């Protein structure tokens, strides 16, 4: 997904003169050609994430469309107040594109992981959140995002589904509903094999716009903090009697390294763990 992001962004810089890119060293090498071709609109501010967000706000105030990019914990967690004030409070927008997700950087440890990025943005007004499940979903989301001035977060990850799907795709039909966010789709499909469930896919969890078929049991599987979407689901189903199960990453720090597969298993987000949780709930 990161390579697709680099390719698409480099093309957009050539096509859309309003587009600017702000980096904080991460992916600096990959964007070397873009830096060379557009020195007036591509900036590497060094290891300065607070400044990256402030620069994004300033660029937007002059009418540019800034894309900001880093590891999720540095882009969102570290610069949270700059995102809140230098973008939101100024009534300015930007496209934030993160890599690393909840535990792609498993061997790097907790310092490089951001299971709470979407929950943090949920405290703020007006953010559209894209969680693509496949690299081929990235270009369309990015191209749409640079053509307006709103606040958009694109959460890229190494984990991806075998193929790309459109937002809102229904992949299986049954009694209860399982909503799979982004890269959670393939493990959800494997986990629910033979179960009487509808599986709905979304790569755009904010604003929460998932069309949940009439069913009294809902499971949401998301690749960031468990329960992040709970209040959105509760609101969407406020007039319907229902039971809900929210699966995702736990908030307890896992002081182990390994790979993202190990962490997925530890958080019960591998197919076996999901099947256990979903079966027990249904």
């Amino acid at each position, binding site marked *: 997904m990161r390579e697709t992001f680099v390719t698409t962004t480099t093309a957009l810089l050539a096509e859309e003169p309003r587009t600017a890119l702000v980096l904080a060293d991460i992916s600096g090498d990959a964007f070397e050609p873009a830096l060379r071709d557009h020195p007036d609109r591509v900036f590497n501010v*060094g290891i300065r994430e607070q*400044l990256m967000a402030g*620069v994004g706000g300033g660029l937007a*105030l002059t009418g540019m469309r800034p894309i900001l990019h880093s590891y999720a914990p540095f882009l969102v967690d570290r610069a949270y107040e700059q995102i809140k004030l230098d973008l939101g409070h100024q009534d300015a927008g930007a496209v934030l594109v993160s890599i690393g997700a909840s535990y792609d950087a498993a061997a790097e440890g907790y310092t490089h992981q951001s299971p709470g990025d979407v929950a943090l943005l949920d405290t703020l007004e007006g953010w559209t959140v894209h969680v693509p499940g496949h690299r081929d979903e990235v270009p369309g989301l990015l191209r749409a995002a640079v053509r307006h001035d709103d606040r958009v977060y694109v959460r890229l990850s190494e984990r991806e589904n075998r193929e790309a799907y459109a937002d809102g795709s229904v992949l299986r039909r049954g009694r209860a509903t399982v909503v799979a966010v982004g890269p959670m789709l393939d493990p959800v499909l494997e986990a629910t094999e033979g179960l009487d469930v509808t599986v709905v896919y979304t790569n755009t969890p904010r604003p929460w716009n998932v069309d949940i078929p009439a069913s009294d049991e809902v499971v949401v599987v998301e690749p960031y903090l468990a329960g992040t979407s709970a209040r959105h689901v509760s609101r969407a189903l406020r007039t319907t009697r229902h039971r809900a199960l929210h699966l995702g990453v736990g908030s307890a720090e896992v002081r182990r390294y390994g790979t993202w597969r190990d962490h997925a298993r530890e958080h019960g987000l591998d197919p076996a763990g999901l099947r256990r949780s979903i079966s027990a709930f249904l």
Partner: protein
Amino acid sequence: MTAISAPTNPLHNLLSRVTGDAKHAPSAHSTLDVLWVLYDRVLRISPETADEPDRDRFLLSKGHGPAAYYAVLAAKGFIPEEWLDDLGGWDSPLGHHPDRVLIPGVEAGTGSLGHGLGLAVGTALGLRAQGFDRTRTFVLVGDAELDEGSNHEAIAYAAAAGLALTAVVIDNQSSTHGWPGGIETRFPGWSADVVDGRDHDAIERALREPGRPHLVVARVEPKRG
């Protein structure tokens, strides 16, 4: 030299109409002369051109104590004088910190310290990218505000980028631990002027310096209490 100190100056009347912010009063007055010189002599901006893409930009990073800012904006016709009579009220657009969405002519909503310099760097980069070469960007910071580390991210990058940006630091010695060696030494790679923050001609000369980037330290009376 200090025209504003004359009791007949119309700003006095406007300033006295801004009430309800006693806590921040000394800091409000520390910025008064620099703000007046900016709006009266330097900035290419008026209520009629407040939305022009090539207007000069001024960002009040130190959003605290904005009484002087509001008085100057009223004196220059950006906001009605009547607004000054209700600071921080439910129906007032004027808060104890300025909000750009509510106040015509205000470029940045500030209050939490250490945000204006980064926004100003982005503003200057955006103006440069769009070819507005005559447009100048100014940002005003307090000496205590410099405590915030985010400023130093912006200071280092502005110098590395050779950015056409002028920062004014109002020095009323309010930083708890001070700046041994001088504030100007904390802006490596910037050209700098240190001026009497009440001397309008000296302030104007320093603000007209075309540094890339340029620092103006405006010294005023030490904050009391």
